[in-house]
């Protein structure tokens, strides 16, 4: 981000950057940056809180009128109120998390679980008017099937010419995760991102399947598949030690 600030400012455009990782910003020295104490992914703070977001954006844009640079790095003072968990939130009901089993059994559980969340996901779309599902271009059931086939060792080819099979798998996994996280947040309550992640990774067949898929792909001889599986399927904070 700070590198872009340098390039654009050198081309004659005034820039102000939001900073999420303060040490990186301090090292790169963009003309103007506002560090914010929010979790990665939320540079303007809590979703659905327009007044809070407006305060952040005004603090940033106000730096464009300053004359004491370069370099100006300032801190936004307030935390994201949505960081706190909502004890009243409940995830949608699904069968108990799967016990350890074969890849085929886990794949079947994943494919059976996806339609069980359809109503919750439809409530999400009705409530927020959008979905982040759609990167790989398949329906969510087809995504589930594609992921399940990989988990069963079938290594299906990519159905899209523009995507290699490993890239298609990455996008299909992204879509499955987006679908689950949206279904989980439908209805009452304002869950934190950690609550939603805890549910996906610990309570669902999808979480178990993606963990298992990661392990299976890491054992592959395909370096590209290993790279994607190792880094771009399970968040670093959720990777389990297989000891």
């Amino acid at each position, binding site marked *: *981000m*700070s*590198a*872009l600030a*340098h*390039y*654009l*400012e050198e*081309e*004659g*455009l*005034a*820039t*102000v*950057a939001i900073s*999420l*990782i303060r*040490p*990186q910003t301090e*090292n790169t*020295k963009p*003309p103007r940056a506002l560090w914010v*104490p*929010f*979790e*990665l*992914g*939320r*540079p*303007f703070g*809590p*979703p*659905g809180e*327009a007044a809070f*977001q*407006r305060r952040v*954006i*005004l603090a*940033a*844009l106000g730096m464009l*009128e300053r004359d004491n640079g*370069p370099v100006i790095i300032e801190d936004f003072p307030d935390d*994201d109120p949505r960081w706190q968990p909502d004890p009243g939130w409940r995830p949608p009901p699904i069968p108990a998390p799967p016990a350890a089993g074969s890849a085929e059994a886990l794949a079947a559980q994943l494919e059976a679980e996806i339609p069980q969340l359809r109503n919750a996901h439809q409530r999400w779309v009705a409530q*927020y*008017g*959008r979905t*982040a599902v*759609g*990167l790989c271009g398949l329906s969510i059931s087809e995504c589930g099937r594609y992921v399940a086939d990989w988990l069963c060792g079938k290594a299906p080819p990519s159905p899209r010419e*523009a995507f290699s099979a490993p*890239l298609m798998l990455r996008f299909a996994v992204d879509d499955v*995760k*987006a679908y689950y*996280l*949206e279904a989980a*947040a439908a209805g009452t309550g304002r869950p934190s*991102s950690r609550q939603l992640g805890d549910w996906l990774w610990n309570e669902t067949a999808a979480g178990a399947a993606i963990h298992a898929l990661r392990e299976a792909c890491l054992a592959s001889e395909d370096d590209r598949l290993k790279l994607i599986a190792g880094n771009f399927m399970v*968040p*670093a*904070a959720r990777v389990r030690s297989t000891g």
Partner: protein
Amino acid sequence: MTRLTDLPPAQAKRLAEAECPKFETTPWVTGPALSQRRIAIVSSAGLVVRGEMPFRGRDADYRAVPVDTRPEDLLVSHISINFDRTGLQEDWNVAFPLERLKELAADGVIGSVAETHYSFMGASDPIQMEPHARELAGHLKRDQVDSVLLCPV
């Protein structure tokens, strides 16, 4: 919150010690009052309009997001999975504050909102991004943009 102490230690160390490009110059562009500025968002979230080509791997170029893009048509194709996406799923303004910018323009706080906004994928090599960023500056200036809000994830 993203104080580094709140992240898993290995991730915090990697982020804090990530190699950053060093710049010899400290550019500084001044301009008119905020109420006369035309502002564009440049994101590094790997944003792509639904139906267009997502960022593949570490593509170093950018994607355009027209000002009339609907929230349901914006997708995130960033390669990293180590940032929260649930906020963006619920409300794109947490990382792409287009509606907030439009409100500020309607209120007269800023002059106007650019016709087109843009996204890079922030895990790309900054050196490879440079020619694309300089090309992008030309597009922005042709849209009369004078100021850019840089939005990471």
